[in-house]
């Protein structure tokens, strides 16, 4: 396939200007090009994507095509998103420029960063016209905007072997002894599952004591069934496929990755008590050294061509990683033909997104999470 569809350049036509709020300036195209040349590259912190090679290539190509400038995109993948924050806070405390220009990580970290006064106010921006494509529910103007809409930690199971599963608490079923995986304590993967479980068990995630009861439930009822505590998706995939386990607790994306990888047996379990979305958000740290490229990147990332990259030379599996549900109506008719038949098995409709996906109170979450997550660690002995 030849990549044809290029996202619209953010640059204004010659002669006109756009307002860039982060710099508090109106910029002409020439000024933008000059700024890009000056900046030369940017660093994006993101831990979710595997297709980042293609993403890097395409963005560099996009900047070259749109502005005639060769830049470098450093795509920082790390296993622990918390490291980003530590590095960021340390740099900011020292008065150094932050090591990243764009943070593309889960909402809870943004909330934590806000508590640390770390994100920059950059929205709305003339460099990010695509902001308009995104539903309001996925925006935290002025500091952040989502690039995912339906990410959530949950259960992916084998339809053939565990087709009877309907809810998270089914993980405690004795039939699953030694046949499930659970996430390691620590980050939002475990946190998100515990919150969903809390809802199923009728507990309030805002209350640390109630969450500890959820932890107790997990440790007493689910952990004995676990073959392995892991946050390693490939390991889970392989275990699931080979039949060594019947269900894994990870992100919803795993189900469609399995499907697109040829395993139609993997099913996604949506708890009857609802879904808490834990989406990835894009924000710019205060003092980011490459603000113009950062915004161009954000705008590019939000474009339908990048959300649903039909024309990139990539496989189906990685394809799905760029798309985590519609961010707004503009994206709906870009579903590729080869996926249309199964799309709504693995992705919700825009309607469902707007009605069934619940938003977490991240402030409350962040206030209590340390306490009950530590309790989880302690109960596990980790």
């Amino acid at each position: 396939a030849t990549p044809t569809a290029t996202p619209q350049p953010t640059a204004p036509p010659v002669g006109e200007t756009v307002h860039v709020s982060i710099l508090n300036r109106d910029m002409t195209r020439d000024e933008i090009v000059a700024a890009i040349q000056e900046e030369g590259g940017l660093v994006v912190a993101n831990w979710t994507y595997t297709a980042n090679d293609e993403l890097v290539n395409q963005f560099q190509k996009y900047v070259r095509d749109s502005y005639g400038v060769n830049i470098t995109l450093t795509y920082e993948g790390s296993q622990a998103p918390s490291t980003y924050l530590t590095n960021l806070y340390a740099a900011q405390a020292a008065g150094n420029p932050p090591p990243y220009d764009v943070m593309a990580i889960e909402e809870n970290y943004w909330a934590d960063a806000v508590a640390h006064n770390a994100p920059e106010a950059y929205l709305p921006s003339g460099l990010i016209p695509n902001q308009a494509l995104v539903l309001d529910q996925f925006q935290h103007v002025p500091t952040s905007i989502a690039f995912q809409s339906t990410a959530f930690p949950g259960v992916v199971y084998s339809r053939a072997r565990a087709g009877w599963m309907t809810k998270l608490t089914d993980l405690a079923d004795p039939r699953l002894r030694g046949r499930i995986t659970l996430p390691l304590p620590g980050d939002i993967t475990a946190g998100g599952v515990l919150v969903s479980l809390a809802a199923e068990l009728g507990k309030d995630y805002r209350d640390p004591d109630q969450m500890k009861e959820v932890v107790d439930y997990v440790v007493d009822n689910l952990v004995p069934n676990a073959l392995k505590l892991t946050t390693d998706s490939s390991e889970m995939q392989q275990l699931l496929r080979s039949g060594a386990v019947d269900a894994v607790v990870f992100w919803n994306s795993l189900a469609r990755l399995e499907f697109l990888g040829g395993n139609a047996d993997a099913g996604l379990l949506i708890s009857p008590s609802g879904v808490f979305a834990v989406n990835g958000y894009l924000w710019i740290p205060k003092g980011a050294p490459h603000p113009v490229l950062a915004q161009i990147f954000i705008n590019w990332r939000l474009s339908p061509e990048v959300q649903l990259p039909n024309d990139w030379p990539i496989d189906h599996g990685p394809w799905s990683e760029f798309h985590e549900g519609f961010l707004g109506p503009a994206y709906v008719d870009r579903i590729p033909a080869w996926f249309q038949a199964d799309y709504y098995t693995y992705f919700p409709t825009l309607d469902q997104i707007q009605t069934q996906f619940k938003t977490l109170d991240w402030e409350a979450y962040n206030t209590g999470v340390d306490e009950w997550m530590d309790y989880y660690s302690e109960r596990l002995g980790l």
Partner: protein
Amino acid sequence: MNLARLRRHLADLISHAYIWGCLLIFVTPFLALLSYSFEKVGGVSLVNYEYVFGSFMDNLLTSVRVSGAAVLINLLISLPAAYGLVRYRYPAKGFILSALTLPLYTPAAVLGLSLVLTYNFTYKLTTSIWGLVFAMVVGTFPLMVVPIVVALKDLPQVFEEASLSLGATRWQTYWRIVFPLIGPGISAGILLSFVIVFNEYLVTLFVSPPGVTTAPLRVFNLVRTAGLLNTTAALAATLQIISFIAVLIFFRLFGTRYLKGTYLI
């Protein structure tokens, strides 16, 4: 009578089989990676290696740069230290050597944590690659200095004496006699520290500044986030192949003599 002979042959056979069995186990992880790295949907292919020279090239180059700098600095520090440790007599020499070689015994996670807490978080030296380089230098210093110490100890002082008595100055003696003659020891040090630095991921995981991802760290991150892809296996296999080639070249040139006493062999 012939039974006795047969028994001896059988014992020999079992001995050698045992050695090769163990060796097979050592290389199994590598062979597994290697075979996986050739896999591609629908057959065997070298296509995964295109990534090694494509998007992983940066990581490889970073690795080479970090290893090169670390090995070079290490050498510059180790040469005089080894000379001072071997050719002079003074009290507490053994203690000094132990103190200098202790980093080898520091668990990598602890070394990484201490460096990151001290230099990244407290002194905010986050953005430079030199932190990583020096972390590598300190971690592999013993591997550099010990072979040189061994080589210097093995080098009879008589060569230096002969050189001096033939009228050479001290510098002429170092450059024309001592350094060439401890060449194998120096090479052993270079080999060992290169192999370790080149494959190190754990200290790097802690101390590498943003934007600096060495190849082994890339392997670690990729496997932890994306699973064991064929392309990742290709990168991991490439790293081991490069290391092994370095080892083979060294063995061909110098044998294993100077690797003695270096914890490794």
